[in-house]
């Protein structure tokens, strides 16, 4: 049997995880090197796939085998524009996190090799989630990602980590199990129509009554809303991100939470277009609340990691808003936002992690005047913060702008209110910077060392990409656009014709 590209992408990190676990305990360094090597090979392979996708299209990568015939489940992988972007993000962030967390797990409850093995396992499962074109396979991998993340949070982190891990797991399971009910419902519909099949291509042909579609939609949407997370199902995120190591937080917010917004595009819009349109008003209001509430709470935080977690809730509000605006501009913007948010939040979490590991405290009040002692650290922190608040010229700006523009063309009031979120973003980032980095050097800060080479090495790719995509986002947008257009067709909505003609190239 020929092994497909995507299967290879999925297997490689798995093999890496096993290999990492097999390294003897005494040779912790070798285990880390093995993990890094596997993640880098995966990255190279992903790059080849992404370039190939750009040139030859998606057909080359689709694979499908019957898995459980009685359930209609298939082992089916494939790519679309949205999937490619997120697979690339996953493959990119994993080696960065491994480098940045090189010493983070050394004094944990468990051996450090298990930390890196769980990271690789998570990478494999996440790639599978973004590539699955069968609902059953997607669900299985979606739930399976909880296990590595649960052990990453619970095994390596702050004092309250076990509480945070359980809270994370239970919230996710609540969403996941309700989704299971919807997944089972899809099976029943599919079996009534003929031979049961979970392939997305078969499911889109199903006829559903209005009520059925709405109920099934709600099951899926709830799971994704918990995952994303949207207010009011967000309270697990600050706890989890606050207790986990910075590397884990990056994987959690940067990759795992994207499954929620990814799922909204692929499954909510893709399978239940009418119900999605029906739910738009409520979802948009919830997203708006997420934007504002997340930002307001971020301003009030005293803990750096929790603050960043709340900023993400605000950002995810923007992403969901862009998706459910149901305009192509909003959808492209949201997908781009997912990618850019992964980059900027990764940078912010990692630099904050560097800072916290030096002082041994995550409290904002314990810092002051860091920029005098460790200028490079302060500089990267400011850069990451500015990208998070969507400074023009950096990549998040473009996506945030597109989302707002996309929402504005259909829902003016919501877009106008959402703009307040940008102002609040400036507040929470700059206030945090001011309190920690400027002012007189606080006690305990004098001896703070600046970033070492390894730490800088982990951040540089993020900085380069944030600036690069801020100036020239076209390659990513080109990949996303076709996928968004087919989704828009499926939903059956068209963009409102602009009243003032726009010139080509504004997008």
């Amino acid at each position: 049997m020929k092994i497909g590209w995507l299967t290879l992408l999925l297997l490689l990190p798995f093999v890496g995880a096993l290999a990492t676990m097999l390294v003897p305990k005494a040779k912790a360094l070798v285990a880390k090197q093995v993990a890094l090597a596997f993640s880098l090979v995966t990255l190279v392979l992903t790059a080849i796939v992404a370039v190939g996708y750009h040139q030859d299209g998606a057909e080359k990568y689709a694979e499908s085998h019957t898995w459980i015939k009685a359930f209609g489940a298939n082992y089916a992988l494939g790519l679309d524009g949205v999937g490619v972007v997120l697979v690339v993000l996953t493959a990119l962030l994993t080696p960065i996190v491994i480098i940045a967390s090189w010493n983070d797990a050394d004094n944990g409850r468990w051996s450090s090799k298990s930390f890196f093995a769980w990271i690789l396992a998570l990478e494999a499962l996440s790639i599978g989630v973004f590539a699955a074109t069968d609902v059953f396979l997607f669900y299985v991998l979606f739930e399976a990602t909880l296990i590595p993340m649960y052990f990453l949070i619970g095994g390596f982190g702050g004092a309250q980590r076990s509480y945070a891990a359980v809270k994370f797991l239970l919230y996710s399971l609540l969403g996941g199990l309700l989704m299971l009910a919807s997944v089972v419902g899809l099976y029943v519909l599919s079996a009534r129509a003929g031979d049961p099949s979970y392939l997305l291509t078969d499911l889109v042909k199903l006829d559903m009554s209005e009520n059925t579609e709405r109920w099934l939609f709600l099951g899926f949407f709830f799971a994704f809303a918990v995952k994303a997370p949207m207010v009011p199902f967000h309270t697990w995120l600050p706890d989890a991100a606050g207790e986990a190591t910075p590397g884990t937080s990056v994987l959690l917010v940067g990759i795992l939470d994207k499954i929620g917004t990814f799922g909204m595009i692929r499954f909510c819009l893709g399978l239940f277009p009418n119900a999605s349109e029906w739910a738009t008003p409520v979802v948009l209001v919830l997203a708006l609340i997420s934007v504002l509430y997340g930002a307001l709470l971020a301003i009030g935080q005293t803990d750096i990691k929790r603050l960043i977690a709340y900023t993400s809730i605000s950002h995810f509000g923007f992403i969901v808003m862009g998706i459910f605006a149901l305009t192509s501009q909003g959808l492209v913007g949201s997908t781009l936002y997912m990618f850019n948010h992964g980059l900027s939040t990764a940078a912010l979490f990692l630099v904050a992690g560097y800072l916290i590991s030096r002082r041994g405290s995550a409290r904002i009040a314990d810092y002051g005047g860091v920029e005098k002692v460790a200028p490079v650290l302060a500089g990267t922190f400011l850069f990451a913060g500015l990208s998070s608040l969507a400074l023009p010229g950096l990549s998040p700006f473009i996506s945030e702008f597109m989302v707002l523009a996309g929402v504005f063309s259909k829902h003016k009031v919501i877009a106008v209110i959402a703009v307040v979120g940008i102002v609040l973003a400036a507040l929470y980032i700059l206030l945090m910077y001011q309190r920690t980095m400027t002012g007189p050097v606080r006690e305990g800060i004098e001896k703070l060392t600046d970033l070492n080479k390894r730490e800088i090495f982990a951040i540089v790719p993020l900085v380069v990409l944030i600036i690069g995509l801020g100036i020239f986002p076209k390659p990513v947008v080109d990949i996303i656009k076709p996928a968004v257009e087919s989704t828009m067709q499926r939903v059956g909505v068209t963009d409102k014709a602009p009243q003032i003609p726009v010139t080509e190239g504004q997008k």
Partner: protein
Amino acid sequence: MIGLILPSADFVAPKIEYNELMPLLVVFGAACVGVIAEAFLPRAWRHLVQLAITLVAIIVAGVLTGFLIADEKELVAALGAISVDGPALFTWLILLALTLVSVLLFAERSLDGGLSAFAGQAAAVPGSEAEREGTAARLEHTEIFPLTLFAVGGMMLFASANDLLVLFVALEVFSLPLYLLCGLARRRRLISQEAAMKYFLLGAFASAFLLFGIALLYGYAGTMSLGGIADALQTQTGGDAILLAGTGLIAVGLLFKVGAVPFHSWTPDVYQGAPTPVTGFMAACTKIAAFIGLMRVFYVALGGTRWDWAPMMWVVAILTMVVGSIVAITQTDVKRMLAYSSIAHAGFLLTAFVGLAQAGSGVTNGVTSTQAVLFYLVTYGFSTIGAFAVVTLVRDAGGEATHLSRWAGLGKKSPLLAGIFAFFLLSFAGIPLTAGFTGKWAVFSAAWTGGAWPLVVVAVLSSLIAAFFYVRVIVLMFFSDLPTDAPDVVLPGWQTTTAVALGLAATVILGLVPGPVLELAARAGEFIR
């Protein structure tokens, strides 16, 4: 109905289908041989010989059942008393497979100073001089092996009974050995005997309900055979009161054995008190036999009145899932926790049962109730015996350390054992890539196919509650500190190792590639009469 007619001179011997009934006969025959061996063999030989007889009988019966399945022979045997149909054969096969694993656990002797987990001399008063002398003389009750064979034979008969009277006899045949086995623990004998007493009294009570129900149904239909009752439902008018009362009473008797709420209260006490290998055997095999018996009676005989009993079963299913999951949270003993978890699992099984997704009732595609239940029972049975096998290995001076607080930090002490137990728990919780998930999926889809989608919603919410207490144990094992007086993890002999390995392998394989077993369960088809 028919008066006393003396048989005329030419007596015709009834035709018995020996070939099809051979698995049953092998098991019962071996049990009798075991009893004789117990009487005549010298003590030193008994353990080995009994184990050999039991294992050979189970394997031979299993192979014969396999042949019957391969031949696709389905018939009603022994003058309509026993129905050797697809579901019955499948059930025989899983019962025999799980009994094989359980017998390995029964035979384990390296955990407790070279002696088995069963009392040396059941008649000796606990704590007495006689008991100490018995232990010093290394006495063992090897009667457990024939008892087990009688129990599994009764279960096989129960799952294939096509006649209410045979059903009742089979129930007693498998219950009586179990009552005995429950009281035979070597450690903590008082609660073991208490468990046996409770189980016996409540079991007798439930049997009485069942018998009364049978009597009423006989009064309604004038026959004991399941097919005859189904025919009477079609033709007979009037007598509904007696029919409904009979249905309700039979349901009580059967749901008691299944361990469904509100007839579950014996489960935690008995599971806790019984010797752990026996608990595993009961939790897996009794549930399987009882469930198939329940389905057979209600689908075959009472299928015509399903609109009368389905609402009652809806309520029982919801209660079982919710109570099982919620009460499990408060448990502090690992065996009691697993007992409540088995109650919750009975609830999940009931959803498929009341889903009534049958090939006959207009459902042409998709998973049927029988298929889903059979498959779920396989996944549940192997994980359950595996989990109880792990429980036997965590010991301190007083025997098994079953209090949950004693399990703190187990992941530090023995990562392998704690990892395996965590895997079983994840399977019980229904996390994907484990057998528990595919099983849950099957029963939920059967329930929904039959239109019982509200039950599916209740089921997923109970699954969440259940997940909470499974995860709590994982947290305890992996994220808590190891106390100084932590119990030891005993190195098991080959018997327990094999049992755990089989349970683990089944849980992994049925989670990843459930296809073949599902196909087999689908081929089992429906009950015949």
